[in-house]
């Protein structure tokens, strides 16, 4: 079992607000790790450390280390473009660009500026769409606007456009919260497929989802990582009283 992402005494402040407190965790390759906890506990913040999306917010400071493949990505000289190619993110609301389906998928390739032939692009589009099981549905409408798709298809497309640049890690920030139960089940199925090739970290407020889909689970509360364990163990025999209270629905 290899560690893909490791945090060491990770701290984060938004101005004066201490949002992450001494988080120590290890996220392993080819597994799905869920981060659960009540709203405002810092789970999305933690996720956004791994692709440095918190940098967009003014007044953010970090302390400690976040290592991906052994390299501290919090170092000031980190190449954010390379990092974000390697660590893709799926958002809560599916956010395909207002471009065609095709252009959405090749977006990541195009912004790297390398000359890629038309046939290579076509191949990337096909394999990415196959990867999210959309190819058969969309193969004849690649030029139509992505915003015409259903919510579930949009979310799949957002995953497909990440696969196009061959990332290592997929960060998912409540990827199913805008979807109905059937679509949610199908996206979860897709995640199980994808974990064989990627390291997946999913933030969810839905404990059942975490229990269904993940291999490891971390429970966060008020910026602290309270407990981190195999999903079955965490849900069956939580070691911390607060974890037990949360998963038995006493708050959150």
């Amino acid at each position: 079992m290899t560690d893909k992402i490791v945090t060491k005494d990770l701290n984060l402040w938004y101005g004066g607000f201490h949002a992450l407190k001494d988080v120590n965790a290890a996220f392993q390759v080819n597994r799905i790790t869920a981060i659960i906890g009540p709203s405002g506990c810092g789970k999305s913040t933690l996720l956004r450390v791994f692709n440095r999306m918190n940098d967009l917010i003014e007044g953010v400071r970090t302390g400690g280390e976040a290592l991906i493949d052994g390299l501290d990505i919090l170092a000031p000289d980190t190449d954010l473009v390379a990092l974000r190619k390697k660590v893709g993110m799926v958002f809560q609301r599916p956010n395909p660009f207002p471009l065609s389906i095709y252009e959405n998928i090749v977006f990541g390739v195009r912004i790297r500026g390398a000359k890629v032939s038309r046939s290579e692009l076509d191949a990337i589009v096909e394999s990415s769409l196959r990867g999210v099981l959309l190819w058969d549905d969309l193969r004849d409408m690649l030029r139509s606007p992505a915003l015409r798709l259903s919510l579930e298809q949009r979310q799949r497309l957002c995953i497909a456009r990440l696969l196009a640049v061959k990332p290592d890690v997929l960060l998912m920030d409540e990827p199913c919260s805008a979807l109905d139960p059937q679509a949610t089940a199908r996206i979860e199925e897709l995640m199980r497929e994808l974990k064989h090739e990627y390291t997946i970290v999913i933030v969810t407020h839905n404990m059942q989802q975490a229990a269904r889909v993940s291999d490891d689970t971390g429970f966060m509360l008020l910026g602290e990582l309270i407990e981190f364990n195999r999903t079955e163990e965490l849900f069956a025999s939580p070691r911390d009283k607060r974890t037990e209270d949360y998963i038995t629905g006493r708050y959150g």
Partner: protein
Amino acid sequence: MRKLREFIIEKLVLLCGLASIFFVVLIFLFLLREGLAVFKTISPSAFLAGKSWYPISEPPQLGILPLILGSLVVTFGAALISIPIGVGCAIYIAEIAPKRLKEILKAGIELLAAIPSVVLGFIGMVTLVPFVKTVFHLPTGLTALSGSIMLAFMAMPTIVSIAEDALYSIPKTYKEGALAMGATHWQAIWRVMLRAASSGILAAIMLGIGRVIGETMAVMMITGNAAVIPHSLFVPVRTLTATIAAEMGEAVIGSEHYFALFAIGIVLFVISFAINVTADLFLHKRQ
């Protein structure tokens, strides 16, 4: 009692609403009646495509092609200058400028919009016109180019504020998504945000151009007012608007010249109307 009051107020407000429409219709009918009268003596095609405008020769020659081209050349020049600068400014304000600078710039743009056009024309006359003359070695600085530059200043506030609004109101998730894929800030702006805001930006451009084509005072002061067909930006031109403003005072009421000026008004009206409708279409597409 209360019911009666409600009733009266309601009807009064209704009257105000109808009044504006009523006056528009009245103005339009008047314009049509006076303008269309010119076509008793000259065919519409001779009027629109005629190459000479000598309204006081005998018989008067009433071809407005030089005036239409004059307006188009000035507008085209103004668009060429104001669109890139205006959209660039909108991008800077919406996306790049730090908060404080953003407020200052927005206030500055509003101030620019508040300058009366006659003042801009006057400033243009004493500064820009001699400048254009010496820089391009022209016999006169009163050219279409001078008019275009000055009009660009007038179109800019409209373009900047509406385009900035369009950029600001696109969902933040587009930008986040692009950045999360490793796009640089500029790539996110260029490849995603401008596309997403395109209909609003096009509307901004159309409204800016609409303002330019209807503008009278500044162009009359600095474009030289020669009613000849322009072959470049560096010659004096006369616009549709300037023609009406300059000649209405001396045209004999009821003469062909008088009716021709109203017909020019109709042409201007049609152009402005078309531009505004186009802008509206873009704005609605956005919603």
